[in-house]
């Protein structure tokens, strides 16, 4: 049992650290869920990509560095520690790309991966519908075959689509077989958010920015070339994304370790902080460190041929709740200043509040932990 880094990994980490020190903008960018901030964050994606830091774990053929899982975790640590901007390309990179690599045709990979990696095309996910949230399989948006044009006609409504207010393209599930029940008869589609028949209505989030949108589909044509995987097989195709979103690839420990270190600094700077808050600072740091070490254990398991499986659900519960507690502690340390929007802690707090909800609510995750890790019977 050890936590030693070999020379190659250490060199990779040091190179990332040096590059970030040189290149991370000194001033924070405007919020990425504004028109101005969206463009500024895209430019940052291009800067990252120019030196091959946007998708380090991808193959070199697609602007990556073939980095190992461990190297990716360390890159993320360096990234957040350097205070680098939020990733506007995140949803495409962490949710769609793994599926494109696994299920996409070579032609789809050629067409979509490089523009995703260099920030020229930003992707938004289109999972939820007004009547399908945690129960995603109850979705109603339809896809009807159009043999004459060689594609499908999409109709319906998606909602809570992150980045869709400004993004270029979307991905999501549609019911292509109206006779099939729930998880069957779904197809995974890629589509342009500028396609005829699409209407976008931005939704302002709790933080005051249009980070969500509703997407209305009225007879939107999607060619066969933009079906991901086999028609009717969408659920199985999509679930590899759900696993990624919950597990390692969406929220690396780096984000929480950096925030915990900043929390300790904040606490040190408040000379007469009540003792109880010190304990909460300690607990937040411990939780971030626990998540970090847990991830190194998971990296070891995966390297030895193991899988994450339902542990991803335990993982998601843990990081999302640690994030909320950590930011609550920071706000409590700020005292009456806490409510002011000028503090980055409030932005972090508002973002953290979404964690226990997205990627499958923590209630759903607890059911999964209980049934699949503990072996308790499924409810009736």
């Amino acid at each position, binding site marked *: 049992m050890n936590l030693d880094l070999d020379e190659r990994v250490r060199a990779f980490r040091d190179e990332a650290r040096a590059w970030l020190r040189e290149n991370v903008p000194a001033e924070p960018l405007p919020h990425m869920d504004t028109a101005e901030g969206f463009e500024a964050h895209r430019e940052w994606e291009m800067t990252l990509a120019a030196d091959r830091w946007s998708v380090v774990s991808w193959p070199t053929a697609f602007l990556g560095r073939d980095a190992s899982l461990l190297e990716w975790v360390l890159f993320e640590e360096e990234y957040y520690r350097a205070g680098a901007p939020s990733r506007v390309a995140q949803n495409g990179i962490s949710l769609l790309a793994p599926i494109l690599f696994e299920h996409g045709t070579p032609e789809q990979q050629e067409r979509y991966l490089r523009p995703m990696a260099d920030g020229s095309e930003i992707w938004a996910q289109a999972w939820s519908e007004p009547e399908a949230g945690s129960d995603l399989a109850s979705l109603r948006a339809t896809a009807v075959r159009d043999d004459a044009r060689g594609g499908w006609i999409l109709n319906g409504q998606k909602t809570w689509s992150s980045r869709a207010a400004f993004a270029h393209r979307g991905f999501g599930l549609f019911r292509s077989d109206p006779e099939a029940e729930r998880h069957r008869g779904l197809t995974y589609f890629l589509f342009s958010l500028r396609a005829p028949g699409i209407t976008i209505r931005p939704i302002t989030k709790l933080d005051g920015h249009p980070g969500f949108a509703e997407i209305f589909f009225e007879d939107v044509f999607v060619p066969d070339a933009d079906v991901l995987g086999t028609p009717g097989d969408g659920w199985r195709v999509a679930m590899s994304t759900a696993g990624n979103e919950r597990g390692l690839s969406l929220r690396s420990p780096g984000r929480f370790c950096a925030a915990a270190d900043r929390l300790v600094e904040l606490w040190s700077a408040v000379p007469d902080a009540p003792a109880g808050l010190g304990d909460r600072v300690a607990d937040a740091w411990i939780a971030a460190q626990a998540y970090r070490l*847990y991830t190194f*254990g998971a990296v070891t398991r995966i390297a030895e041929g193991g899988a994450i499986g339902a542990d991803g659900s335990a993982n998601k519960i843990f990081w999302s709740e640690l994030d909320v507690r950590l930011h609550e502690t920071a706000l409590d340390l700020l005292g009456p200043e806490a409510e002011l929007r000028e503090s980055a802690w409030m932005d972090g707090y508002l973002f953290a509040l979404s964690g226990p909800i997205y990627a499958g609510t923590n209630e759903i995750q607890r059911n999964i932990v209980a049934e699949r890790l503990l072996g*308790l*019977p499924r*409810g009736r």
Partner: protein
Amino acid sequence: MRFAPTDEQRDFARALDDLLGVAAVPHIARLWAEGHHAAGLHLWRRLAGLGVTALAVPEEHGGLDAAPADLVVAFEALGRYPVPGPAIESVVLAPTLLAAVPDGPAPEDLAEGKILVTVAAPPMTPYALDADMTDAVLLLEGTTLRAATPGRRLESVDRSRRLFETVPGPTLVRLEPDTVATALATAALTCAAQLLGAGEHALAVTVEYVKSRRQFGRVIGEYQAIKHLLADVRVALDFARPLVHGAAVSLGAGSTDARRDVAAAKVSASEAAYRASRAALQAHGAIGYTEEYDLSLWITKIRALVSAWGTPAHHRAELLAALTTGRPTHASDL
């Protein structure tokens, strides 16, 4: 990097499970609580046969000179089964503290499990476990190690923890501060490992119970209230374990972060095990509240170990001190 137990450590854990799983340990713990030590001493001789008592003894004295990570494997097993006796004191502390005492209890005898030694280390650990039956009683006051004799007996909530005040005797040796710090950190680490094991057991028996206990026409494990209660225990234990293993790696490597990491491990393992014990009691209902049901052995042991070898408050203060003194600490420096 390979952050997982080695094959040898897995084999060691399996051997301990094989021994303890069929040794009627709860019965032995109950006898021990009544002052009947024979069965417990027999169990300790069998544990010695697997090398448990030799782990922290140097090789030149017939020991294994094992890494803290090996101690963690052993102590998690000693927590999973409620093995009575001064385990941390005799296995972890005595070999280190007595190394510089030429005419003290022999390390060879400790390694072979021929003798048991207990230690009080006030203010953190004011009382000596089982001091009326051990071969030696040690009193660690700062860096001064004294011989001692048992005084008044005190009752622990964990009835198998027979506590004694100590009457100071002659000074045996003045120890290096680093020796004391490492010894106490290793004690806290192994206590954390015991808590993990005890928490795992409390969860495991509760999962079995809620799969069979029926109320309102269904097994109670089908109810989300129960599922979520136990899911939170699974999560807490899963994220405490890497901290315990990480602290073992730090201690083994002589890292300057070792005290910080041990503090994190003890806080986290205490909290996870305590959560497990509370959930176990709640899910069992009245039967869990009885002394005669074996779950009580773990519920009371966990409560006792939460405050043993450094309370959570003590370790949080240690952690904050480590984080805010000296160089700026980053979680991301390996």
